[in-house]
């Protein structure tokens, strides 16, 4: 035995181990491929579920009913008062007219639940715009309640036991009848983009959150870009290379890695408790987010300034420019595309951030679309968080839709950053 081993040459030894080594090489390679696939498969699963859940929210079920703006119902005392007129009764009468055979109180109540409570507000707004409608009949498509909407989108199963459904057998039969007579159809869901938040899923929209986010981003960019750019210019071009500059450098790198929720605590303690700024306001949210994005912008701007070749500076200095003139007349114009790209990336991070906003009270239930920087408001990601918490099935669909809108915005921002970098980038 020992003799055979001794007689093996190095070459034989290598050959003997080669099969095993090749196998391990192949395994390692496959393992690497699998690891790479994990992230990409997750991404695929994520986007498929998101689109599968959310795409239906962009359509909404409407029912066409004939409404009678009768003076008896709306102005019993002869005087029309839009705030107190019984528009709910108008809607109830309209749906009952479709089903004259339904007479019992209980059934009638169930019947009226087919139509959204928002229909009454819609009628009121119509009448407010055009008083001449009083006394006339109109055919109008109004949104159904979210349960009917879910039924039409097959999100409520008909086969499940009636007690476990949010719609009764009778209601389903009525809906089927309306479908058969062509009175129920689905249209693009404009309410999603024109309404503020609501407790009723079929009336809830992202407009308020979107406007709040836009206000916040305006504050964020207005504060963080000038300050970030100025800080980057100072650190890259003027700061003496001493311990103080080192400290600032470490500090900025560290700030970029501080958990975002800590910025929320800072905003709560400083901007709200100490400075007395209003809670839930886009102004405070924007201030918090600008502190959060400042390090991102500083780091990107420094990289952009660093990439401007020293020969440009030397040439300007040789022609007698002061250091400030070199920077402001030559370096910054060349570094600006890079700095702006950094700003856009910072903004896209700010747009997706929600944890610090929870701290400053931007999670309140707010129906109105904010009209100024100090109005109470939410933001798009916070709206996602709020809707994700709601138990109704219809809100899950809308959450996915809101996420799709959020991701589209992020995609557009990142895309514009990439395009800008590609188009204006200079190779020195």
């Amino acid at each position, binding site marked *: 035995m020992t003799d055979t081993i001794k007689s093996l040459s190095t070459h034989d030894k290598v050959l003997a181990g080669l099969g095993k080594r090749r196998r*391990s*090489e192949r395994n*390692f*390679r496959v*393992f*690497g491929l699998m*690891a*790479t696939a*994990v*992230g*990409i498969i*997750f*991404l695929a699963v*994520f986007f498929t*579920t*998101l689109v599968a859940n959310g795409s239906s929210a962009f359509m909404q079920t409407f029912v066409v009913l004939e409404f009678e703006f009768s003076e008896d119902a709306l102005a019993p005392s002869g005087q029309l008062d839009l705030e107190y007129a019984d528009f709910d009764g108008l809607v109830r009468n309209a749906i009952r007219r479709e089903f004259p055979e339904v007479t019992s109180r209980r059934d009638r109540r169930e019947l009226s639940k087919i139509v959204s409570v928002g229909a009454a507000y819609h009628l009121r707004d119509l009448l407010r715009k055009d008083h001449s409608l009083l006394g006339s009949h109109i055919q109008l498509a109004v949104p159904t309640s979210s349960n009917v909407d879910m039924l039409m989108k097959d999100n409520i199963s008909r086969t499940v036991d009636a007690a476990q459904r949010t719609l009764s057998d009778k209601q389903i039969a009525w809906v089927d009848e309306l479908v058969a007579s062509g009175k129920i159809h689905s249209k693009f869901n404009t309410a999603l983009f024109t309404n503020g938040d609501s407790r009723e899923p079929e009336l809830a929209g992202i407009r308020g959150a979107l406007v709040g986010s836009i206000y916040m981003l305006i504050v964020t960019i207005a504060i963080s870009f*000038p300050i*970030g750019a*100025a*800080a980057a*210019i*100072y*650190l890259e071009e*003027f*700061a003496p290379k001493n311990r103080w500059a080192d400290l*600032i450098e*470490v*500090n900025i*790198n*560290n*700030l970029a*890695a*501080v*958990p*975002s*929720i*800590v*910025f929320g*605590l*800072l905003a709560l*303690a*400083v901007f709200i408790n100490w*400075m007395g700024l209003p809670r839930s306001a886009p102004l405070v949210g924007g201030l918090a987010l600008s*502190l959060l994005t400042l390090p991102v912008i500083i780091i990107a701007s420094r990289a952009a300034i660093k990439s401007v070749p020293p020969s440009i500076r030397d040439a300007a200095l040789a022609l007698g420019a*002061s250091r400030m003139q070199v920077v402001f007349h030559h370096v910054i114009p060349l570094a600006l595309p890079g700095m702006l790209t950094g700003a856009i990336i910072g903004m*896209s991070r700010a747009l*997706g951030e*929600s*944890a610090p906003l*929870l*701290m400053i009270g931007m999670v309140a239930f707010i129906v109105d679309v904010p009209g100024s920087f100090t109005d109470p408001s939410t933001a798009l*990601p916070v709206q*996602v*968080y709020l809707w*994700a*918490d709601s138990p109704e099935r219809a809100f*899950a669909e809308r959450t*996915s839709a809101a996420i799709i809108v959020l*991701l589209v915005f*992020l995609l557009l921002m990142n895309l514009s950053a990439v395009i800008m970098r590609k188009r204006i980038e200079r190779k020195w």
Partner: protein
Amino acid sequence: MELITIILAIVALMLASFFAGRARSLRLVGGPRKILRLHSLPGYYGYFTALWCLLPASLLVMVWVYLEPRVIVALVMDGLPQAHQALSEGEVNLLLGNIINLATGDAISGNADAIMQAAAERFNQLTIDSRKILAVFAISVAALSAIVSWRRITPDFRARNRVEQIISAVLILASSIAILTTIGIVLSVLFEAIRFFREVSAIDFLFGLEWSPQTAIRSDQVGSSGSFGAVPLFTGTLLITAIAMIVAVPVGLMTAIYLSEYSSSRIRAVAKPLLEVLAGIPTVVYGFFAALTVAPAIRTMGESLGFAVASESALAAGLVMGIMIIPLVSSLSDDAINAVPSAMRDGALGLGSTLSETIKMVILPAALPGIVGGILLAVSRAIGETMIVVMAAGLAANLTANPFEAVTTVTVQIVTLLIGDQEFDSAKTLAAFALGLMLFVVTLALNVLGIQVVRKYREQYE
């Protein structure tokens, strides 16, 4: 007078003084042809006057706007009858809120009596007066400082140096904002945390095993004495972080190795941007996915295998968090691997080792410090991550290492303690700041360490 009008007026003055300063410098030397007699370019004289017009006035406006509400409130309260001034602090605040709402035309609680009406009118009058005074002051300060600086202009006046000094000061100020932010974080968190530790001992907080942060409204209430033992939160955070790391570190590292050593450039060109997309998805979206897709899936799977899984299990939150961190780990590992000099790689390959042997025995040991630094940063990211755990992990402070049970984390508790209207002097809200302090200190340590390791290592091979 509206604030915006005052600001516009100052801006208009500023523009005027720019042209005035520039014109004066040219006139002093006798026209554009004699420009060489000036020390600086004419524009700098304009900038100099304009900056001096702007700065003092805007400082005044800022200070005024900050102090105004406080002074007006004090004046209104002084004007109230004696009986009202003897009220407790809470009642005074309520009264004040009502007066302000009355003045701005909002709804108020209770009925407005004559005294409140008078106070509200006084409030409105004072606001209008204050803005008028500010307008007069600010505009005259702007004009005065512009005239003074305008008169200082002579052909020898070193305008460019003065302007550059001001710009330089602005730049220094901007770069110190980063430092101020850190100081602000430390101070704001520290002060509230100290107030918390006055009520609850630090030992109980750091080593207590029970977390039920409620403060009693009545003293005889059940569970009136809230307990603030944060150990279950720390273990919960660590459990979720550990799960996330078990996912993210091997996957991220192998992804980096595969993409930098094995894959063709075509695959790399597709896979890298896709992984960057993963890094760009907002955390609230990951949270939604964890809570509504992953957690139910794990629950169904667990039940089919016959063991109980909480609907808000640590596993779901940890898994999704791990996926979120993959791009961070892979990009930092990628940097570390690429920093290994190719001579080392070529040497190993030249001696006949396979690529995987080269990676395992040469590249990874050489890149290890950089990779470890990256992992530290990833751990810090996982500990501080908020939205995923808020949405997918529970609120129950269980002291367990079982990933199928619900646990809670430091960040979840900070959010739950601070959401909703809270008074700022209860131990409950202050506890959030104590937790925030812990979070900040731990992540700071991890970040500083991680950044130092990564940086030092990068320099080693340069």
